[in-house]
């Protein structure tokens, strides 16, 4: 097979979608040495001023035709393909889109990754520009794509709820290809309770529900003997001015430490050292921090909404929506060493269920189905 794989989102600072594209590209190229992969560092209208940070695979079966193209050249090429006067580099049979873009791809078959539907179910969690980009990409995909890759069963269900008639369409195939941890699953669960802080991971934006977390933290610290502080790792998002002020104020009282965007290495260390990850997000397409925390034996407290339960399985501790309940769960985990050690050991089992090799196999299966 000749497969063009969109890695446009891996060129800048990477969020979960960027990491997913990066790691899936690697896993695909490794799993299918006989197939050819063309990494596209410019994709549709997602054009990068600098592609040097993007996915780099030096393997005999991968090529990087867009790597050294300027934005202008790439724009021209995509425009030519859109108008039917150009051909995509490598003449791919399949083009796999990963960045909310579903451009015209000539005679190739378009596969589209669906991360989440929150811009339709909870538009208040995003910016208007972002909402419009996601909407346009997804609707283009509904018109053009013949294969859909969902990053969780929950995302697939939401998609099918929004597009109930699409199921009946002929020749449309789809698969669930869950994300997996960037970090190797540690060999042993924790033998003792970590003395360190609570950890929260995710950019500062309304969707991540930091408000509830900070409320819970206040309540927890009134009642806890240990009064563990909260470390927050996550870039600056949007609509979060008040949140920033609050973090600063609680920082002065020693309750919160805000680290900003951290590198993969630092994040790995944070997961290994943290007491537990608290992840009260309103809406996730997958919930990568859950699986990454679990892979380091770090217990997780999260909610049952959207994909969170899928990612956390029996390893996570679940709370019910309110900050009171979240504080209660935090105290429960802190005051019951048995529970803590049990969750840490379940964590590794759960994390092993998510593996880029398995995900790559699903995706390759979808490609083959499309070409058969």
């Amino acid at each position, binding site marked *: 097979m000749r497969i063009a794989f969109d890695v446009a989102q891996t060129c800048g600072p990477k969020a979960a979608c960027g990491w997913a594209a990066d790691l899936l590209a690697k896993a695909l190229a490794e799993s299918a040495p006989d197939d050819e992969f063309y990494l596209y560092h410019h994709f549709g209208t997602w054009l990068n001023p600098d592609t040097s940070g993007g996915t780099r695979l030096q393997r005999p079966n991968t090529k990087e035709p867009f790597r050294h193209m300027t934005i202008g050249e790439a724009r021209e090429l995509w425009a030519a393909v859109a108008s039917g006067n150009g051909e995509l580099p490598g003449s791919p049979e399949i083009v796999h889109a990963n960045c909310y873009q579903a451009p015209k791809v000539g005679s190739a078959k378009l596969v589209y990754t669906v991360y989440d539907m929150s811009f339709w179910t909870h538009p208040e969690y995003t910016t208007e520009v972002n909402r419009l980009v996601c909407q346009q990409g997804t609707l283009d995909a509904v018109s053009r794509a013949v294969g859909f890759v969902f990053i969780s069963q929950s995302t697939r269900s939401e998609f099918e709820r*929004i597009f109930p*008639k699409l199921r009946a369409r002929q020749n449309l195939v789809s698969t669930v290809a869950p994300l997996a941890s960037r970090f190797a699953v540690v060999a042993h669960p924790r033998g003792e309770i970590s003395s360190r802080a609570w950890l929260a991971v995710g950019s500062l934006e309304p969707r991540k529900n930091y408000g509830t977390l900070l409320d819970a933290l206040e309540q927890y610290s009134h009642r806890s003997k240990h009064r563990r502080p909260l470390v927050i790792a996550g870039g600056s998002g949007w609509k979060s001015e008040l949140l920033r002020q609050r973090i600063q104020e609680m920082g002065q009282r020693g309750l919160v430490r805000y680290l900003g965007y951290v590198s993969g290495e630092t994040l790995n260390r944070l997961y290994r050292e943290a007491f537990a990850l608290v992840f009260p997000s309103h809406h996730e397409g997958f919930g990568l921090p859950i699986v990454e925390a679990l892979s380091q034996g770090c217990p997780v407290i999260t909610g049952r909404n959207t994909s969170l339960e899928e990612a956390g399985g029996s390893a996570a501790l679940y709370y019910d929506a309110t900050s009171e309940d979240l504080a209660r769960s935090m105290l429960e985990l802190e005051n019951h060493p048995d529970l803590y050690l049990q969750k840490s050991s379940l964590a590794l089992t759960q994390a092993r269920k998510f593996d880029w090799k398995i995900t790559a196999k699903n995706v390759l299966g979808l490609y083959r189905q499309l070409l058969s």
Partner: protein
Amino acid sequence: MFKRANMIRRLRSKRIKVAVDLTPMLPGGVNGGVKPAILEFIRALQQFSEPHFRFYFITAASTHHEVEAIATEHDAVICIEWPDSGVNLTPNGFQKNSIDVLYAPFGMIRFPDCGIPAVTMIVDLLHRDYPFSITEEERQTREEYFAGMVQHASRFQVISEFTGSRLIHHYGVPAGKIFRTYLAIHDRIKVRDIPSQCRRNPYFFYPANFWLHKNHEILLIAFQIYQHQAGSAAWDLILTGSDDKRRCTLQELAMALGISDHVVFKGHVSDEELAQLYSGADVLVFPSLHEGFGIPPLEAMNLGIPVLASHEGSLHEIVGEAALLVDPKKPFELADAMTKLASSEQLRAELRCRGVQRAKDFSFPAEVTSLAQMLVKLAPTWDRRLRRRVSQLWSNGRTRARIKIVNACRFCRNCLGKALRRGNISPER
């Protein structure tokens, strides 16, 4: 004091000459609902006898004939090739024709130095409130003409309290310079009963151009969800709106969503066809993301058609409690509301009743009177002798009166005299 009152009475008893800049008007429905509204306002002003308005229409070639059709024998219609021959309309041109007021209903003031007070109509501040809907080029154009307009207009006619508040918010225009006239032109649509054998499948109706902020995408997604749930009992969806590239894209989307058999794209329709479509409509759906007024919801309420509308922009102000309001960014919310309305005759009856009641709160004659009063208020501020004096100055080519200053002092003779003495009248560049 006596002299001034006398002068005003004299002016009123004769006539007020209003130059109306209609050069931005485009053929067909490209301007959207604002075009019929402006024409209705002008027609209504033509009916006034006390004071009597005479119009000096400035038109562009593409719509010149449309304006000629509404001009009476008292009016003048001058066609200019904007911007090339805009120079023909020098301040002198306005002086010679003794124009009292310039009315720029399409917003932009193309003759800022015409030397007379200007009233401009502002429908929305889309370029600031929802710029995603227009191209960057268009956004810049609007930025430019708004900057000029805010500087040069004597009064701002806004079409809702909402638009007025946005104008104050973005440009700091003093509230005293703003007056509101609703586009209450709902009476123009007269619906006749359609014989029962012509009745087709019930339908939702959405008359709107295919601009991004009209939000057809979410409507199509929501309709698809509704249609899937309702099965064979599902209503249809009828859309009108000027043909453009987005219509094709949306038609393709309807196809991809598997609803193209139930969605009808009518294109731009005549007033008569529009009336016909209204008369058959079972629910008006209006999921716009940004609106300065919202003529269709008002028309629908007036005709006893239940309204399902977005809660954004001015829409709540217009429909009050007489419509079902939803978040237009949420397909499920819209779909649920469609299901609710299509399945409950009781709910429709209640909305019909409330809508008819609500529409009675809007009276076009009252709105026209507000506009007429504003034009009268500005017109007599021009003393005829002063006009001659300024005209002479202009024709000498030495100085150019700055409208802003003169308007601000409401043009009493003393003020201009003072301004002249103080040198507030700036020399020509």
